[in-house]
């Protein structure tokens, strides 16, 4: 894939990749990101394969959980690492399975730098992008977005998109407590509670056989809804 590379790699942006047993693809994903971004941190979420070593060799900083905690916890760890690095002013979360396009991150960062928003979330369902989302998945994701009063109020159509770009303010205040896959909904609630200014940007998702096999089964939606209801009780 060719990318309209900027003259020098971007140094103020940190790309955060949560990864669990992604040795097969993590090298290429990191290398491609590194052609545009100087700073990539891969959070190895207790993988049993060589994910961490491969990411390190491809040029990423590697932070390794000693045990598997889940994607939400990995994102939180990555953000805490990145925000402690000097000069970090923009942050992006990027899935390790290669389903996102680097080009979209560049577009979203440009959008963020206009300065009128704090966070930009990728969406499969807005604008003119023709992402081939499988019909059942599409229906479930759209229903999930519609069922959430917060998503509707904020005008978000694809809360479970793994591609997010945000500024220092969001990174400093981010506290994800849902370790597993329920963090996407928690992210949306945090946006609402902290009054972060949010917008969406159309992105394309590359549904490869690999990313489809690694993706979360739709039944997991039940867990996500359940955790969402209980979250309020847990905040103390």
């Amino acid at each position: 894939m060719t990318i309209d590379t900027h003259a020098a790699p971007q140094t103020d942006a940190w790309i955060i990749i949560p990864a669990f047993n992604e040795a097969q693809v993590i090298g290429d994903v990191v290398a491609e990101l590194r052609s545009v971004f100087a700073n990539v941190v891969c959070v190895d979420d207790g993988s049993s394969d060589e994910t961490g070593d491969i990411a390190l060799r491809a040029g990423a900083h590697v932070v390794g959980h000693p045990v598997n905690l889940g994607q939400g916890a990995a994102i939180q760890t990555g953000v805490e690492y990145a925000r402690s690095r000097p000069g970090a002013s923009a942050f992006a979360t990027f899935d390790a399975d290669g389903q996102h396009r680097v080009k979209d991150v560049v577009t979203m960062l440009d959008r963020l730098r206009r300065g009128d928003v704090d966070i930009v979330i990728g969406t499969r369902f807005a604008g003119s992008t023709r992402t081939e989302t499988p019909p059942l998945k599409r229906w479930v994701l759209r229903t999930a977005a519609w069922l959430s009063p917060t998503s509707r109020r904020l005008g978000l159509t694809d809360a479970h998109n793994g591609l997010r770009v945000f500024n220092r303010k969001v990174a400093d205040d981010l506290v994800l407590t849902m370790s597993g896959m329920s963090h996407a909904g928690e992210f949306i609630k945090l946006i609402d509670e902290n009054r972060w200014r949010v917008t969406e940007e159309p992105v394309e998702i590359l549904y490869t056989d690999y990313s489809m096999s690694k993706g979360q089964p739709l039944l997991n939606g039940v867990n996500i809804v359940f955790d969402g209801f209980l979250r309020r009780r847990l905040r103390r």
Partner: protein
Amino acid sequence: MNWIQVLLIAAVITLLVYLLRSRTNAKAKAWVKVGYVLFVIAAIYAILRPDDTTVVANWLGVDRGADLLSYALMIAFVFTTLSTYLRFKDMELKYARLARAVALQTARTPDH
């Protein structure tokens, strides 16, 4: 006295002794102990005079004392399940923070 009554009372008293001997010293635990002593007294009473539970049940519009006990048990079970669930979530969060601290201390940076 029936044998079953002897066995039940022995079991309840054993549990009471076990609980009161445990050395958890938080103030909140004290209330748990007080509650447990009251529970043991009520339990022994109910074991010795099972028909009295029917009287209480009738006050509340339930036919049999055994039904009343099973309703109380259901509520207690749901309460226990929920509090265990919340406690587990709390533990999970602490565990995640611990693992995160370890991860951040052992971060590896690329050479180039």
